[in-house]
């Protein structure tokens, strides 16, 4: 019985670990498939879908995360960059993003970066 429980736990944790990024759509409709995201990342996904998309498509986010290069500037897109972009959006007039929104979305983009390098 204990062995069975142990194997179940391994299977469940393996499901989380295998949540590789899937990209749906093309061009401006490009987006991440949220089906495999853990529940605690749902708020981040929701903020991205509402606040970020208010001004630009998610294509540039997908390209930045999957390539490691910010598509507009050609700069490296890593965890330092996610914080930098968060601060940029916080300070941008009329970006309509609160401090909590910024923290949530930085956490979500860092999660995406981690997922993107999983084999």
């Amino acid at each position: 019985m204990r062995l069975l429980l142990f194997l179940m736990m391994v299977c469940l944790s393996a499901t989380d670990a295998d949540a590789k990024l899937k990209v749906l759509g093309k061009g401006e409709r490009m987006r991440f498939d949220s089906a495999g995201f853990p529940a605690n990342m749902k708020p981040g996904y929701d903020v991205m879908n509402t606040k970020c998309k208010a001004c630009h498509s998610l294509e540039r986010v997908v390209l930045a995360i999957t390539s490691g290069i910010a598509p507009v500037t050609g700069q490296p897109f890593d965890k330092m960059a996610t914080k930098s972009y968060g601060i940029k959006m916080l300070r941008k007039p009329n970006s309509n993003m609160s401090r909590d929104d910024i923290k949530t979305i930085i956490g979500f983009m860092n999660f995406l970066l981690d997922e993107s390098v999983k084999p």
Partner: protein
Amino acid sequence: MQKYNKLLLFILLALPIVFVNQASAIPAFSYEHNTECTACHTIYPELNEYGEAFLKNGYVWTKKLRAPKETTPVKPVVQKPEVKGVGDQALPEQLKADSLSAEEDDDLVYAPKQRKNEPLWISGLPEKLPLSLSATLNMAYNKDAADKDKLDFSTRALSLLSGGVFRDKVSFWVKYNLYTQGAFDPAVSNTPLNTTAGSGPNAAPDIEEVAFMYRKVFETPVNIKVGRFRPKLSLWKKSNKTSVSDFATNTYQVGSSKFTLDAPEDAIEANAVIGNRLFVAAGIVDRNGQEQKERYGHISYKVGGTDLLGKEPEVDLDNEHFTDYLAITLAAYGYFGKNSGDSSFERNKFFRFGGDLDVLYMNFRCRLSGVVGKDDNPDFGSKLKTDSYVLAAQAEYMLALNLLGLVRYEYQDIGYSGVIVHRIIPAVTYAPIENTKITMEYQYQRSDNEISTVATDQKLLLGLRFTF
């Protein structure tokens, strides 16, 4: 009644512009970098912090580029292929793929966009032709117009713009006026272009600016700029605005002298961003027909906000502080020159000293600008020494992403005229789409001599500017 009819006509003409809802926006920088206008502008053409950084660094995003992350295992560069005698169609692709997956040198600067088309990159050619057009249409309503022509539609301009950078080393900027009509004079007309070029149809079909800048000479922060351009004096070029009219500090003239702070000149300039927040520039101007060069210098420092290389400030996301949103830039500059009239060998020796302050806090921005000057012969004849003191203060607020309101006060005391001019200029600017700007501006001007008010003038301006 008739005047209300004309005002109604004025507003009706503006309505189609206000409700326009579709356009294709591909100005040179937007097209080249595949980004929207608001990446660098509040409302085009006024620059935001990133636009300022992009401009100061010769149209380059300044951080060092790195290789993109590798997600595939590192493999050695290809093994020697088998020679088949008739060529191998698949070999070139295999070579490319294998070499791209090989380990990168940490110091290698990798520019993915530049390598999309290697022959173009090697040649230094941009992948897209960096050309755009900018059109300006202005209308003025002046109930006190001297010629009784209260509603003036006769001012317009069309300019060809080009800018970019060749392999991050040589940047360039070109502005060619294809067509201009009208001349800006608050008492006469309202086109804010070519203030010194006369009036009439197509008054100035000429190269307004053409400049090249060699970036980072000998890997130092110093850039060398040469050509016909606006010497770096004030923090803001006169085009860096949302209003129809320009800052008086940038455009005022003394006597018959055509010198303004923002006049394009044939010049060579060295400039540099030092320590991320200090900007310095110095240059010499060559004016035709005179033995001595003119000289100028500028220094500015930015506290808070995005630095001059476009890097965000450190912000503690867990603790809010008002300085998170505050940016202050201070500037000082000077110009020493000597010019002459169109048909005179008489010389006017002059100088200008100025200071600027730019304060940005969230949606609010305040700009202060002051200039003092002295001309020793501004009418090229009487040798009447003339002092000038000009101030401008502008407060602006971004009401929405595409809506900005501002009010400006100007004080202009030019000894030559014996009149002190006060102007109050409120304006609202709306961008229905990012490449289209509509400005409604009211100007109130009062002219005083030493005893009393000698004249007042009121004017309503409607400016439309679009670029594509």
